[in-house]
């Protein structure tokens, strides 16, 4: 979950004759999605995001009323059962996706408790069998009770990973998280860590990717994924992924980057750094939804030519699905993917 950023600048003359193209036939797993529902987003978070949009537009001479922007944001977050997300996945050729459920409740007033959000996401999985993995949020300030709750939620619902949101005010290497990491180590659960900017009332300092280093060293059997690591702090996230065998990076939010030359070129640079075995494809849906939806994003990455230029098909497969399978608990992988080569324990950095 991050806030929308500007799309790439129009540095070159756009091709206004772009035809519609069918979705890609390559199997794709989206490692970074959210249910687009106001039930799971604090009002304060929405106001922060919309306030940022309002200030940007105002500076550019478009004084769109704040109320109107808020209404538009809320209207885009009424997919409470993920029906629309599944329809988009079908159209885009995305077989499965990870639903991230950040726990912001110790920092912002949330519509639902963590337990209620967990139950709702379990229900969404039952409604759409075989389509989602769920990474549930934790906050170290919940203490031992929080670790017990995590254990219970994994027992009850079979969630496949945890989601950390350090901008809520803690480091991902905070020792208070270690009991949670013990749970992750015992159950082979990966840890997805938000990095980079977010809602303006939250803390940016703990969201630097380097904060993961201590925890990654202390828990070598736990797989850590740097959320947005391919989008913000890219150089740092990339060397962590290159040299820490249990650190991966996610590209969620890639379509909102303002990289010079556009996001396909920025992705291509990342994909050619020699760390294709550590990069996870993710969109951060419903981010950039108005700019074309899942189909366009997936198609531009898979079939667009530029993002994967010079990237071998085997590496493309790693990025689009295999790396995610390598970090997931073995029992949660689709049956067809449970083969020796997809076991993360057999790979190094």
């Amino acid at each position, binding site marked *: 979950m991050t806030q929308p950023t*500007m799309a790439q600048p129009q540095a070159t003359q756009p091709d206004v004759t772009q035809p519609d193209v069918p979705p890609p036939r390559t199997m794709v797993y989206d490692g970074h999605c959210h249910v687009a529902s106001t039930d799971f987003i604090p009002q304060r978070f929405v106001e922060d995001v919309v306030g940022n949009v309002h200030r940007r537009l105002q500076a550019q001479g478009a004084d*769109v009323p704040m109320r109107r922007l808020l209404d538009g944001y809320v209207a885009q977050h009424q997919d409470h059962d993920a029906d629309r997300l599944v329809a988009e996945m079908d159209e885009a050729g995305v077989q499965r996706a990870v639903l991230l459920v950040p726990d912001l409740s110790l920092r912002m007033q949330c519509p639902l408790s963590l337990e209620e959000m967990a139950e709702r996401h379990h229900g969404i999985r039952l409604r759409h069998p075989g389509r989602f993995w769920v990474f549930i949020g934790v906050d170290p300030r919940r203490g031992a009770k929080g670790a017990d709750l995590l254990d219970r939620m994994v027992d009850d619902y079979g969630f496949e990973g945890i989601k950390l949101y350090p901008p809520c005010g803690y480091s991902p290497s905070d020792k208070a998280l270690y009991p949670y990491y013990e749970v992750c180590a015992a159950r082979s659960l990966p840890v997805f860590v938000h990095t980079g900017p977010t809602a303006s009332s939250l803390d940016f300092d703990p969201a630097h990717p380097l904060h993961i280093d201590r925890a990654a060293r202390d828990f070598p059997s736990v797989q850590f994924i740097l959320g947005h690591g391919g989008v913000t702090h890219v150089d740092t996230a990339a060397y962590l992924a290159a040299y820490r065998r249990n650190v991966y990076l996610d590209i969620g939010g890639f379509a*909102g980057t303002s990289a010079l030359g556009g996001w396909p070129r920025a992705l291509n640079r990342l994909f050619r750094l020699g760390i294709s075995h550590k990069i996870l494809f993710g969109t951060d849906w419903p981010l950039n939804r108005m700019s074309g939806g899942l189909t366009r994003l997936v198609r531009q990455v898979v079939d667009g030519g530029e993002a994967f230029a010079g990237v071998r098909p085997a590496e493309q497969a790693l990025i689009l699905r295999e790396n995610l399978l390598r970090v997931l608990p073995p029992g949660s992988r689709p049956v067809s993917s449970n083969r020796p080569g997809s076991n993360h324990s057999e790979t190094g950095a």
Partner: protein
Amino acid sequence: MNADVDPAALEKNLLDWVRDWTEEGAAQQAGPDTDLAGTGLLDSMGLVALISYLEDETGATFDFGTFDANGGTSVRALIRHCLP
């Protein structure tokens, strides 16, 4: 379509707005069916601003919740969605 709205005039107004917003001449060849987001003419902020302008021009409310951007974000598609 709302009977009080001249669709051709509305399309022209919106395309003029896009050309004014981009300011670099990139939108000169854009037409009512040009995919504004897919071609990079407008980013997400520009789209929000254009839709706000559309609402101002028509007095209608754009339903963000049901808009399907997979079909493209052209001036004509935005008008059709806002004024069915």
